[in-house]
Structures are given as structure tokens and as C-alpha cells.
């Protein structure tokens, strides 16, 4: 099963709104950003896949401030990287729920920050991307999945 970019954008948007009061709009799928952080998470089970979210500095700071309800924080950028990791975890949870419902057997890995220069994985049979603009910055969400079941 696969999900389109609109669904990916919707799941990510919901996570951002509910957790951090950050509101986003979809942008041109070809749009780029200057990445300040890249978070990835793998999942396995009925099918395997990887979710990767990269974000620029403005998005990270907005995300951290939104999650913590603080306007000013000296280490907002560092907190933003941690927040991006958690966002990746939350969106992956929503993604596997959308893929298989509450009876599906998916196992999420542990989200990790990787070097922003690394290209998000697009090697799976299915690859989906959405680009989201917030008030302060931009994030790119990449989802790639295999077509069959894979053990973790």
C-alpha cells in the first residue's frame, strides 16, 4: 500500500498543529531548502520503510518554540533538532497507522539525526515527498517503502 504526497502532508501537518501549534502549507514538490537538520526513522513489519524529514533553521526554531510554548530560548536551534527527531517519530506512527490501522503489525525504529548533507533515502519501490512551508521556514518530508514484509 502507498500513500500520496497529500496524505503525507496532512499527517505531518496534523502532528505539527497538535504538538507544536505550527501551521504549514504545501509548497512546490521541487522546492529546496538549506537543511539545518535531517531526522530519519525506519519501520518494519507488514512492509518496511523509512521516513526522513529535513528542515531549515527557521523551521527548527519555530518547531522548538511551539512545542515548548516559549518565545525565546537560548538553545532553540539545538532543541529544534531534538524536536525534529520527535516529529519524525510522531509522523511515522501516524503513517503506519494510516497504512495498516490498529491491527497492523508495524514496529517503529528509533528516530535519529543524521548529517544534513545526506540525501534523504529514495531507494524504495515507492517514494513520496511533500514540501511544507511554515511561517518561519521549510521542511521536506520523504517517505520510501518496500512493497513486501520485512523483519526488523
Amino acid at each position, binding site marked *: 500500500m502507498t500513500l500520496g504526497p497529500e496524505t503525507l502532508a496532512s499527517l505531518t501537518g*496534523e*502532528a505539527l498543529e*497538535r*504538538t507544536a501549534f505550527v501551521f504549514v502549507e504545501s509548497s512546490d514538490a521541487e522546492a529546496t531548502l538549506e537543511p539545518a537538520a535531517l531526522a530519519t526513522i525506519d519501520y518494519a513489519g507488514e512492509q518496511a520503510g523509512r521516513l526522513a524529514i529535513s528542515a531549515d533553521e527557521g523551521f527548527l526554531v519555530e518547531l*522548538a518554540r511551539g*512545542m*515548548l*510554548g516559549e518565545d525565546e530560548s537560548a538553545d532553540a536551534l539545538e*532543541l529544534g533538532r*531534538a*524536536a525534529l*527527531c*520527535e516529529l519524525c*517519530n*510522531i509522523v*511515522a*506512527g*501516524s503513517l*503506519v*497507522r494510516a497504512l495498516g*490501522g*490498529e*491491527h*497492523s*503489525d*508495524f514496529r*517503529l525504529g*528509533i528516530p535519529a539525526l543524521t548529517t544534513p548533507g545526506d540525501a534523504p533515502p529514495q531507494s524504495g519501490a515507492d517514494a513520496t515527498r511533500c514540501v511544507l512551508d511554515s511561517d518561519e521556514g521549510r521542511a521536506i518530508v520523504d517517505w520510501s517503502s518496500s512493497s513486501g514484509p520485512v523483519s526488523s
Partner: protein
Amino acid sequence: MNGSILIVDDSPIMRKLVRKSVEIAGFPAETLREAEHGLAALACLAEEPAALILLDLNMPILDGEGFARQLLARDDIPSAPIIVVSTESNRDRLDRMRALGAIGVLQKPFEPEELVELVSSLKEQLS
């Protein structure tokens, strides 16, 4: 309140968010403790019992389910009610958590107010 609230989550920002929500719910900051995975949580409880555990499931070292199993099996560590705060949606896994002592589940993504309400509703019980 008898004992502290233990927040168990590998995400430092999620621990901050949960801590803030619990403080807003009326629990003093000095009654809140944090652990970044299940093993650290067991060590925390061995030092001092908790009145409530807010538990993520998907964690490194020892995940939430492994923690709950060990907690139940250990006679030397007093048990405590658990609220699962997690992305987990698999019904079987959540049923197993209920069997291991979870009294509630808050699924991520959640609005902080939902956590405030949930913890507030338990305040009288924990007093």
C-alpha cells in the same frame, strides 16, 4: 501526593513538554523525575517509588513494554500506575500494556491540553 511522577521518554524535548503539562496540571516541579529509557526508569524507581509513571513505548536500551514487564516481575521495586504516552497504535500491544498495569493511553500526536486534562483527572486519586 504520595511520591513523584516519573516521566520516561527518550526524547529530551518530549520530556520537557510532558513536564510542562504536568506542572500546569498542578503537580510541583520538585515531584517530577525523568528517565530516558526503561532501564534508567527502573533505577529511578529502585531509589524512590513513584505515584504515577508517564511512559513512552518506543525507546532504546529497554522499551516501555520491557520496562513494564520488569517492573511487574521485580519484588524490590514498588509498582505504580502507568499512562502510556506514545505513537503506538497496535491494539494487541496496547492491550498487553493494560495487562501490565497501564491505566490510560495518550496517543501522539496530542495537544498538551489533553495531557493536562488526563493528569489533572488523576490528581485526586494520587493524593
